[in-house]
């Protein structure tokens, strides 16, 4: 060990390298206890925590998001591809002039509109009361989409109610049922229900 510090620049670096390159200074006596206690603390933390590394966590989150995306896509595509499973379709309730008529007559105006092809929609149009335009894809495809709905209501119509009702599920490949108009159906029911009321007593 020299008695004098170097006063020239060219001696400085080598002096410090020689003197401090392999210097050892004793740490405090309790340092090892502090280190081992700290390590023990970390181990306990990890034991109760989420036992995965950050990379594993990130990969898990990505997989979870992909699964959610795929399952929701499958769910919505399946729902769209089966028109019979749709929960509701708009029903246009257009009461006529004799809106105070008995129930059996008021049912005349209830016409459920099914989302089908353009031809079906057009056939259901009542030209003077309302105009409904649906742009749908042909043959009830899964990507059926209603683009525009236009209602032109004549002044004589007082109230137009659009009531969602549950659509009756119809198997797609079943033979077409014989169409019975609502008027006929409810008229028959009304007649059946009122028939017994006018049966004279046998006494």
């Amino acid at each position, binding site marked *: *060990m020299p008695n004098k510090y170097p006063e020239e620049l060219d001696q400085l670096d080598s002096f*410090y390298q020689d003197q401090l390159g392999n210097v050892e200074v004793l740490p405090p006596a309790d*340092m090892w206890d502090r280190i081992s206690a700290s390590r023990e603390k970390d181990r306990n933390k990890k034991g109760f925590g989420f036992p995965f590394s950050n990379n594993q966590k990130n990969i898990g989150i990505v997989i979870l998001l992909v699964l959610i995306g795929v399952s929701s896509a499958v769910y919505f595509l399946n729902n769209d591809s089966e028109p019979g499973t749709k929960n509701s379709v708009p029903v246009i309730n257009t009461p006529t002039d004799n809106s105070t008529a008995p129930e059996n007559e008021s049912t005349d105006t209830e016409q459920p509109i099914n989302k089908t092809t353009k031809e079906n929609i057009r056939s259901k149009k009542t030209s003077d009361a309302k105009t409904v335009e649906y742009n749908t894809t042909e043959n009830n495809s899964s990507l059926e989409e209603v683009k525009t709905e236009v209602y032109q209501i004549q002044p004589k119509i007082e109230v137009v109610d659009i009531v969602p009702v549950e659509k009756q599920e119809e198997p797609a490949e079943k033979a077409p049922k014989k169409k019975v108009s609502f008027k006929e159906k409810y008229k028959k029911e009304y007649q059946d229900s009122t028939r017994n009321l006018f049966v004279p007593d046998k006494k």
Partner: protein
Amino acid sequence: MVIDEELVKRCMNNEPAAQKALYTLLGSKLFALCLRYTKDRTEAEDWLQESFIKIYTHLHSFKFEGSFEGWAKRVTVNFILSDIRKKKNVRFSDELDENVLFTDESAHSTIGHEELIYFISLLPEGKRIIFNLSVIEGYSHKEIAEKLNITEGTSRGQLAKAREQLIEIHKKHNKINAKQVS
């Protein structure tokens, strides 16, 4: 006792006896390293403690290429630099701490290691770090610039000023020592 491959592998298997042996071999060297980067002894102790935890935790990344001591020193230096960056911005001022420079405590008739460490601690923080990294640890200016997020020119300039200030400190201490001897 030498740090051999067997000891490192036993440490990797979390054997407490091996880990304590590693601490016994490296603790005093790494503590001297920590002391060169700060004036505060308590801060150096905290750095030593955290550095050893890092070393034990990241042992698997040691590839048995080069000396284990060199690898452990690099881990310690990196931890110290990251901790300094976390706590404060490193300032590259030119002012020496004159208040503590010429006290009776700092004047000794013989040169000791702790006194040299003390001289380095008198340098402003930025110069102290660059002097340690360049002269003692042997990092290039390019590496220092990357570690401290500064330019290579700044690193060179700060090192030149650090050397000048250390020479100034040496001269003043040599004078004091000469007076005390006479």
